[in-house]
């Protein structure tokens, strides 16, 4: 990993500046990554970016020649789950290559520097590479009371985000917290937490929501930038289309069971053991856009639905509030008790209307109306 371990001496700083002149291809060679592994990586990234296989040579060529970009990684109100997702990739090729091709100048979790040294590293990077560095933000930003509920080295996260994201080439909001506020922004949101785009509206933000974000999607986003020199096409929620352009339900491996009408009715029943559709168990796949079914997690090992648990909808804005209850199809109706479902209320409404009109009808049957003059017989 190429984290700037010391920034106190100018010599070291110069050295790292020199290092940046190498192309990604050269650095990988230095690191002992074989050409074969490199091409395999390029093919995997081409697939992750939803590009046809014929693009793989172009990706390889671009990565061979491109200079590695500078990246700073900011942790705000988070659980560091996205860092974990990236670092714990068991197979080293993908996870390590991404860190190798990037010059990560600041990352609180993995950098050796601490305290003022760390602050200085960040300061140096953002002044030296103003408008040229990439910024990754993990965690939501507290806005309430001037942002005092989230501080790093005496500065509020809001202040840091405005400064660092504001002068970055682009900011990647990794994970649902950084993208949309996540769990910290769930009702009642005591700290006034928001995502990066809401905190710094002027910044160029790429949202990579997910709890955690799929590390492959982060790698693909960076590779997309390296290969094409621009940020990927995004949807209305600021998410790259290559990763969030399709609904989970439409790519799900259990979809044939949905169409056939084969559903898990209870946890652990026969249908559950046979791997039937989890729709009735509250799976939010029909409401969620993400590439989990095709990209999967942990080196394509598995993903929630494959392991027998419904989708929680973690890559959608405000999923904590809008996707709950997780094990029911429909949300609870606001203003009615927790257990009151829409159907119970609807049935009550219809029964009430029926009863009211039955009474009205009975009263009408009993009453003697004055007939209109003209219709009287004779």
């Amino acid at each position, binding site marked *: 990993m190429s984290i700037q371990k010391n920034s106190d001496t100018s010599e070291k700083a110069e050295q790292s500046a020199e290092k940046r002149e190498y192309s990604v291809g050269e650095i990988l060679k230095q690191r002992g990554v074989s050409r074969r592994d490199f091409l395999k990586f390029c093919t995997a990234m081409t697939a992750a970016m939803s590009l046809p296989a014929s693009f793989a040579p172009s990706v390889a060529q671009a990565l061979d020649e491109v200079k590695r970009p500078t990246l700073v990684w900011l942790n705000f109100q988070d659980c560091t789950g996205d860092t974990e997702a990236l670092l714990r990739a068991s197979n080293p090729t993908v996870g390590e290559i991404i860190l190798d091709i990037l010059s990560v100048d600041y990352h609180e979790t993995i950098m050796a520097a601490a305290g003022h040294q760390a602050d200085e590293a960040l300061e140096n990077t953002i002044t030296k590479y103003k408008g040229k560095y990439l910024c990754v933000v993990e965690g939501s930003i507290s806005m309430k009371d001037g942002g005092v509920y989230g501080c790093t080295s005496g500065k509020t996260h809001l202040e840091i985000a405005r400064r660092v994201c504001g002068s970055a080439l682009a900011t990647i909001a990794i994970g649902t917290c950084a993208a949309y506020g996540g769990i910290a922004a769930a009702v009642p949101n005591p700290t006034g937490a928001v995502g990066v785009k809401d905190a710094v509206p002027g910044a160029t933000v790429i949202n990579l929501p997910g709890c955690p974000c799929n590390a492959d999607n982060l790698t693909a986003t960076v590779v997309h930038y390296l290969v094409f020199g621009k940020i990927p096409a995004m*949807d*209305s929620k600021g998410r790259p*289309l290559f990763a969030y*352009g*399709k*609904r989970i339900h*439409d790519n799900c491996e259990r979809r*044939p*069971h*949905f*169409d*056939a*009408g*084969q*559903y898990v*009715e209870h946890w652990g029943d026969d*249908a559950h053991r046979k791997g*039937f559709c989890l*729709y*009735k168990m509250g799976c*939010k796949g*029909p*409401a*969620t*856009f993400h590439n989990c079914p095709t990209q999967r997690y942990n080196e394509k090992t598995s993903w929630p639905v494959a392991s027998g648990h419904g989708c929680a*909808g973690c890559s*959608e*804005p*405000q999923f904590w509030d*809008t*996707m709950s209850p997780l094990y029911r*199809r*429909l*949300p609870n*109706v606001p203003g009615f008790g927790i257990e009151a479902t*829409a*159907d119970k*209320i*609807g*049935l009550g*409404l*219809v029964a*009430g*209307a*029926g009863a009211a*009109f039955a009474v*009205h*009808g009975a*009263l*009408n049957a009993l*009453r*003697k*109306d*004055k*007939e*209109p*003059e*003209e*219709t009287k017989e*004779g």
Partner: protein
Amino acid sequence: MSESCKFKCYIWELPVRWSHWVNVLSISILALTGFFIGNPVSFGSSASDFTMGWIRFVHFTAAYAFAVSVLSRIIWSLIGNKYAGWKEFFPLLTAPGRERTIKMLRYYMFVDKEVPETVGHNPLATSAYFALFLLYILMILTGFSLYAEHAPGGIMHKSLGFMYSLFSNQGMRLAHHASMWMIFGFIINHIYSAWLMDIKEHGSEISSMFSGYKFTVKKEK
């Protein structure tokens, strides 16, 4: 004016009657299939079955029929006769309309004994129909927004873009579901009132929706 007979009046034109019965049929189909979509039964015996697929296909086809019917009725309210016109749906906006509404309300609440004579729509009913049409529009918009998600970036998904910022995805489902129950509540009211007025007014309220003719005391000018 005759003292002993009623006049036969052509009230409901063909598009009005067609729209009404297409709505009846499509809402029945949509409600039934919608129940299964919301809370499916494990009909499938093998993964090669397509039970839910067919149920959804019927639901979406009926949805298109319903949307076309509602849209046609809205257009007809601009070009049809005065009984079909949009002004009928806002009786509370005019003084005579308010008077008729109050009279009808008094009859319904057992205050007055005389059945108010209505030639076209019952003013209480049209006020309810306005709310019903808003529900229809909500149903159509939420329904097609959920449907369009199978092809993100498509024409339908793009043109319904505002819906996705107004509603969360699950909120859309809840609204779609709850609106159906409200339409059910309306249907009970509607069938009861049509039956009541058919009996009380002697104007052929119910058969007028098939034939188009009502019988009225006043001759149409």
